[in-house]
């Protein structure tokens, strides 16, 4: 920062700094892929800073050591690639980084600087191949600005050196009046212009791909929907604003609805462990979709189609489904590297899974029957449960007697449907929701129901399950997410903090029906802080980046062309007075045309004015003399006299070998340079004389 203190930077400093910043941007483009490795992540910035302060001292020193190091690195990377331990693009990126470090410590002449910029460009390309994240986009933006500075300053520096020589250029290169903030801003504007052009080319360049050497994207799963929960935690449940699902619904919810009240089902956990729940162990079978039972007298609504993107690292093989009876699940675009090979499975609890587990974002569509079960239709279905529900009826032997009493009080002599509703209502209305965890308890449910009387969603759902099972009604704990918040990017975002737990109760010939004993106002998360909003905005930006840049393909291109076509056609239709708002459109277009015409007229007038001013620099006789010579020149050329661009009027007259030409040139020279008068009649007479003489010759 001392460079910018007070006096600004010299051209030389600006050029070197811009080169270093371009290298840093290119490095960042690679680093965001998180594949470079910790050593390079630390080494490169350290080398960059070191080179800035001490690079000059080592120029052309210990060259052999660098050569040995680079050759050694090349051999190691090549061996790793051949052995299949290292991806070739990653190896190339790492090697380019090493070369870049070497160049940063050895930069003095034009070749060094240009090689550095070339390596930066290669790094950027490697970054493009390694990562498709939004952060790459920011690194790309930074690179476009810094590389513009670097290229312009490098060009200027070496033009000055070659144009003025080392001695003559020294003062100019050290001058602090060249790399001014105005020039930096101008070059920034230039890079902006470049980015606009880049966007134009990007969107219009035909997306015809060959598809060879395509590199699958990589990622590391960081979390997942586990097959067990533990109720003996300490502390407070913190809101996690990270987005786990991006959801687009068809039909969309009511207009203007900013948040969803939707349960996103992940796993059913049937086995009570004493301190929590775990999933029943069962095998996976190819997914089937039995027809839904009729649980409503109302006319069936059209099914809900939920287009879901499960963010990498959160779904971990589990397919989350919206409320309702799943009718179909299909994988959608964009497909991952293994997209078409994904298979859908379902376990005995009805949970959906896919294999192989995709480590990138996964996109799929769930079609679900949306009919809300009516209590009337759930009643009277009896209590004869099939034997495979044994796990969902199991009650722990050491169950607190108070819980049995409470269960009896709430469910005695009631139909299972009414009993479930009563338990749900009791829990949601008499107990309080709290994000404070109770810590380790011998019996967390009894502690929740009879002592603390407040807790989080898992305690509510666990209590309801145990109360129903005590009454002989099969029930199970279900985990997933609740809610969804609308984003400007056109989807509902479900966040990690929206993790929720609820209950499914089994009714013969109706299947599992959802009950949620957690007070409605407390379900999901309340993420309204600045950080939560920032995370949501970042996710929305990431989605736009992916939708418009990463996933832009021939189909999207065709759609764009189609959209432009239909827009133009609609405009044409309105202009011809056929559509709504035709008058307004005509008004707007008329205004635009008037603006353009006015601008053109202004431009033309300015040119005329400037032209007049330029012309005014010459006197009338001088202008007449110029005109005379132009006309004479044309006549001489037509007469076959060879006139080159360098032929002077005197030479032309000599070549013409006629006295009239000499006379004309003398009059021209006198008027053009000697301040003599030349009237229009004189000029015409001279030209006539020349014509006659040339005809005679």
């Amino acid at each position, binding site marked *: 920062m001392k460079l910018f203190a007070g006096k600004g930077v010299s051209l030389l400093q600006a050029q070197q700094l811009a080169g270093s910043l371009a290298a840093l941007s290119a490095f960042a483009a690679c680093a965001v892929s998180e594949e470079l490795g910790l050593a390079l992540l630390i080494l490169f910035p350290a080398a960059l800073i070191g080179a800035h302060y001490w690079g000059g001292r080592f120029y052309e020193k210990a060259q052999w050591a660098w050569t040995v190091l680079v050759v050694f690195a090349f051999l190691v990377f090549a061996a790793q690639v051949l052995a299949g331990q290292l991806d070739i693009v990653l190896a190339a990126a790492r090697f380019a980084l090493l070369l870049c470090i070497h160049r940063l410590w050895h930069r003095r002449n034009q070749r060094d600087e*240009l090689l550095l910029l070339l390596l930066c460009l290669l790094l950027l390309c490697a970054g*493009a191949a390694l990562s498709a994240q939004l952060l790459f986009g920011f690194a790309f933006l930074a690179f476009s600005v810094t590389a513009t500075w670097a290229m312009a300053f490098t*060009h200027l520096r070496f033009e000055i050196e070659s144009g003025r020589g080392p001695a003559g250029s020294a003062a100019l290169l050290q001058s602090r009046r060249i790399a001014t903030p105005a020039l930096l801003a101008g070059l920034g504007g230039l890079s902006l212009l470049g980015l606009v052009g*880049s966007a134009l080319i990007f969107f219009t360049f035909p*997306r015809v*791909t060959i598809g060879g050497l395509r590199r699958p994207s990589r990622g590391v799963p960081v979390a997942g929907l586990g097959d067990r929960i533990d109720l003996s935690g300490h502390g407070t449940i913190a809101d996690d604003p990270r987005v786990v699902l991006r959801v687009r619904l068809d039909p969309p919810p009511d207009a203007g609805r900013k948040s969803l009240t939707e349960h996103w089902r992940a796993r059913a956990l049937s086995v009570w462990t004493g301190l929590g729940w775990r999933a029943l162990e069962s095998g996976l079978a190819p997914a089937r979709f039995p027809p839904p039972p009729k649980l409503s007298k109302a006319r069936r609504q059209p099914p809900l189609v939920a287009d879901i993107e499960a963010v990498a690292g959160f779904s971990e093989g589990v397919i989350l489904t919206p409320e309702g009876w799943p009718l179909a699940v299909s994988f959608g675009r964009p497909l991952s590297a293994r997209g078409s090979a994904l298979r859908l499975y379902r376990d005995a609890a009805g949970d959906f899974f896919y294999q192989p587990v995709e480590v990138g974002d996964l996109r799929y569509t769930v079609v679900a029957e949306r009919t809300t079960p009516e209590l009337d239709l759930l009643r009277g279905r009896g209590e004869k449960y099939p034997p495979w529900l044994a796990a969902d009826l199991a009650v722990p032997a050491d169950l607190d007697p108070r819980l049995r009493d409470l269960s009896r009080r709430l469910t005695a002599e009631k139909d299972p449907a009414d009993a479930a509703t009563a338990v749900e209502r009791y829990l949601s209305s008499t107990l309080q929701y709290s994000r404070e965890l109770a810590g380790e308890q011998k019996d967390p449910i009894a502690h929740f129901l009879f002592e603390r009387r407040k807790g989080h969603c898992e305690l509510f759902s666990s209590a309801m399950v145990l109360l129903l099972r005590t009454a002989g009604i099969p029930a199970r704990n279900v985990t997933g997410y609740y809610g969804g918040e609308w984003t400007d990017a056109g989807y509902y975002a479900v966040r990690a903090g929206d993790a929720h737990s609820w209950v499914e109760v089994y009714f013969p010939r109706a299947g599992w029906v959802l009950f949620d004993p957690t007070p409605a106002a407390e379900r999901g998360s309340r993420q309204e802080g600045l950080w939560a909003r920032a995370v949501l905005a970042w996710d929305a930006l990431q989605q736009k980046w992916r939708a418009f840049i*990463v996933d832009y393909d021939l189909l999207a291109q065709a759609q764009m062309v189609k959209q432009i076509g239909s827009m133009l056609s609609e405009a044409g239709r309105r202009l011809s007075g056929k559509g709504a708002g035709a008058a307004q459109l005509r008004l707007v277009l008329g205004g635009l045309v008037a603006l353009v015409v006015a601008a053109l007229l202004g431009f033309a007038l300015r040119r005329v004015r400037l032209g007049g001013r330029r012309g005014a620099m010459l006197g009338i006789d001088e202008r007449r003399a110029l005109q005379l010579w132009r006309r004479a020149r044309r006549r001489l050329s037509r007469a076959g006299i060879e006139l080159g661009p360098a032929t002077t009027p005197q030479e032309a007259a000599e070549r013409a070998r006629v006295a009239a030409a000499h006379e004309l040139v003398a009059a021209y020279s006198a008027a053009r340079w000697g301040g003599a008068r030349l009237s229009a009649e004189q000029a015409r007479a001279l030209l006539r004389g020349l014509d006659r003489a040339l005809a005679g010759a």
Partner: protein
Amino acid sequence: MTPDWKRRLTFTRVGRWYTGLTIGIGLAAINTGNNLLFLVLGLLLASIAVSGILSEQSLKGVRVERRLPSGATAGEPALIGLLARNTKPRAPSFSLELRERGGDVEGRGFLVLLPAQQAAEAAYRFVPERRGVHRFEQLEVATRAPFGLFEKSRPLDAPAELIVFPRRVAPPQLQARSSARDGERPEDRIGVGYEMHSLRDHRAGEDARTIHWKSSARAGRLIGVDREQEHRRRVCVLLDHRRLSGAMLESAVEKAAALVEREMDAGAEVSLALCGEGLASGSGEAHLRAALTMLALVQPAPRGPAPAPESGAAVLEASP
């Protein structure tokens, strides 16, 4: 006349690399379908386009004039000025190279920045190898701004000629063929000279330097002095180049030029006699230039008439 719109575009070495790399990245993008590579490709192509627009902006509205020295001598450096004027109302021009094109002379100057509505001059040194007419045809204003990828140039008609005088050599130890006395020779009449011719009364309004103070003191009134007109020695340098050509002719011309200069420096009135042409005797800077110009343009004249020396002048014949 070269039209205003005419441009010449060439790749620089960096530009060739850059273009090659762009094609390579384009192929990689098409091959892999990686959109981010398309984005990089877009940036590279856009940079080329922006570079073209800016270089055009730099060249537009720049007028260049050549400033030739009043005289140049073969073998001696001459400074040629190139005056560039940016006539654009607002936009500056960057990194301009001004250079000769198409003529006998090669030279270039460089301007880092030419602000709008301003002029700047660059100069180059030119060492002519031969005497005679050196023609200048066009001036070219070129720029590789902003990135040095391409060079765009605009030719401007600027025909001109520079006459290079013969190379300076030591004058030969020549004696005149006819008898001629050294130095100035006084004539017996009033005129301009150093010797006193006569004394007379000082006339009002006359230059005070004409007062003869000693006589004035003696006479008690102002006495003026008339000087005697001095007659300069007349020398004719003769060059018979009927049988001379190539190096012999050059040597003879150079010696003739040296003689002309030597005699003029010595205060003589010098005339020049060549085959078929001549220069009447005279002195002063303009006469010297006229004589040197004539010698600069001497060509072999195998069939020319014999040189005719000026009558009454001492003749110095230059030979190889």
